[in-house]
């Protein structure tokens, strides 16, 4: 029922208060980001207010800073490789959990979700010490393994959610028409879950690109990802260069999910 009573509630004092709180939430969520972007264009060299004039010099300086460019490369390679691994492993696990019934499923489900609630600092310390004990020094490989484990549960959850909504008739039809398991998967299941696979991949890539806490424990001294580079730069003071770097990252990280979301929508419309 959406009668008169409900309509009157929408105009009362309480409703306006709710509207105000929500508006404040949106201001709260966007103000800091806008401030970063604003300051990136500030010509002042202090990196803070007041705004003294419009300038692109910090972006130019940024592109000339070799260590930041290197950090970008490291982050990018790490994000792509670790999320490819996580997606591969995660899709297999999600298939097993949704398409089969077997013993120990509930336990395995919980184990797979374990990294979600575990403090990253603890994960960072534990893996660092364990691999050091196995004579595996801090390196890119440790970062790769660590990031894969961290993003794996998210991929499993995203792909699982899609698989649940997918009826099995298509797969059964393919099987009864003589396709083998692999053919069924590549020709039927994979195209149907492609949006979730791409979504999971992008999610994992963003998580890896964004990760800082565990990365601080795992990275080799001298190797920096973008977040650890910013972290190190912040030790001294906030410089206009950091704001410029922040602005670039904001544009990239907002563009990625937008493209991802667009692709998912396109792909699901085709089906």
């Amino acid at each position, binding site marked *: *029922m959406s*009668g008169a*009573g409900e309509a009157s*509630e*929408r105009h009362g004092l309480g409703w306006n208060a709710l*509207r105000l709180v*929500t508006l404040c*939430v*949106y201001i*709260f969520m966007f103000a*800091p*980001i806008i*401030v*970063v972007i604003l*300051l990136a264009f500030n010509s002042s060299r202090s990196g*803070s*207010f007041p705004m003294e004039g419009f300038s692109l010099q910090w972006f130019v300086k940024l592109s000339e800073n070799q260590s930041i460019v290197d950090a970008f490369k490291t982050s990018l390679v790490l994000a792509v490789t670790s999320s490819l691994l996580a997606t*591969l*492993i*995660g899709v*297999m*696990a999600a*298939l*097993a*959990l949704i*398409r089969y019934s*077997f013993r120990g499923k509930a336990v395995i489900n919980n*184990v*797979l979700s*374990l990294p979600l*609630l575990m*403090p*990253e*600092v*603890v*994960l960072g*310390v*534990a*893996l*660092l*010490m*364990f691999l050091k*004990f196995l004579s595996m020094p801090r390196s890119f490989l440790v970062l790769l393994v*660590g990031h*894969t484990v961290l993003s794996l549960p*998210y991929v*499993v*959850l995203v792909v*699982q959610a899609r698989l649940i909504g997918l009826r099995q008739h298509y797969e059964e039809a393919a099987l009864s028409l003589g396709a083998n398991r692999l053919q069924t998967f590549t020709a039927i299941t994979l195209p149907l879950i492609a949006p979730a696979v791409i979504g999971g991949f992008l999610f994992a890539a*963003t998580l890896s690109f*964004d990760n*800082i806490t565990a990365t601080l*424990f795992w990275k080799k001294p001298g190797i920096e990802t973008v*977040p650890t580079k*910013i972290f190190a730069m*912040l030790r001294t003071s*906030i410089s206009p260069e950091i704001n410029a770097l*922040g602005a670039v990252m904001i544009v990239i*990280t*907002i563009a990625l999910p937008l493209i991802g979301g667009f692709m998912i929508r396109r792909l699901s419309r085709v089906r």
Partner: protein
Amino acid sequence: MVKAEHRPYLLLSPALLSLALFLIAPIIFIFAYSFWLRADNGQDIPAFQFGNWQSVLGDSFYWLALRETFVTSAVTTLICILVGYPAAYFLARCRFNNKALLLFLLFLPFWISYIIRTFAWINVLGKNGFVNSVLMSLGLIDEPMKLLYNNFSVIMGLAYFLLPYMIINVYVSLDGIDRNLESAARTLGCTPWQTFREVTLPLSLPGLGAGSLLCFVLAAGSFVTPRLLGGTDTLFYSEQIYDVVIGQLDWPTGSVLSLILLMSLAIVVAVYNRFMSLSDIYRSFAK
């Protein structure tokens, strides 16, 4: 050809193997390591003795750090509830055509790098930051207020990154409520406030619970926010762990500290799980 009953285990084996090797084994390892003996020359010798546990548990500083961490996280969670619930209610009940866009906008900052969202608060709260320079130019204050590098800025930073978790959990829960129940309560004579208190609020408790647990656990485990926004009076447990492990290279103590943080959060999660379902939380990550 693989036997049918082996197939799920085969599909799961890469995931389980990597978690066993790189998550579970390391946790077991630091548990063992917490009993090792730290020799005078800085070498750690495999042993079974309780010295590390005794020195950490007997140190009031670490207890203070744990208490501070939990108090700050609880305050942050409370703020997220007080601000997040009304906003989620509004979003669930409003009649905008583009509700999906509103939700999307709320989660846009979510995608932005965590460290950038954190240091943005230095720009907002700093001595020459946004708030101070606006207030000064308006003549409301004469000299900049000390808003940064204290517990206030830590709580702001934490609430900033946790609020969307709260809002989405409450929103999903409110969105799933059968509206006929509310109409029925109104027809039977409840005031709007009574309807909310007796019908809507209890039905949205699972979402509120899930959001609160997430906020609390993620806040209590956070490291970068207190490190960047905190000051000399800020004590966060994960900062102690980092300093001990990376700074002092004292691994036995670091193991003990990590396990204490892990166990105290596990207790919080277990108490929660006693009353509510954890699977709601895992599901909320996928949204």
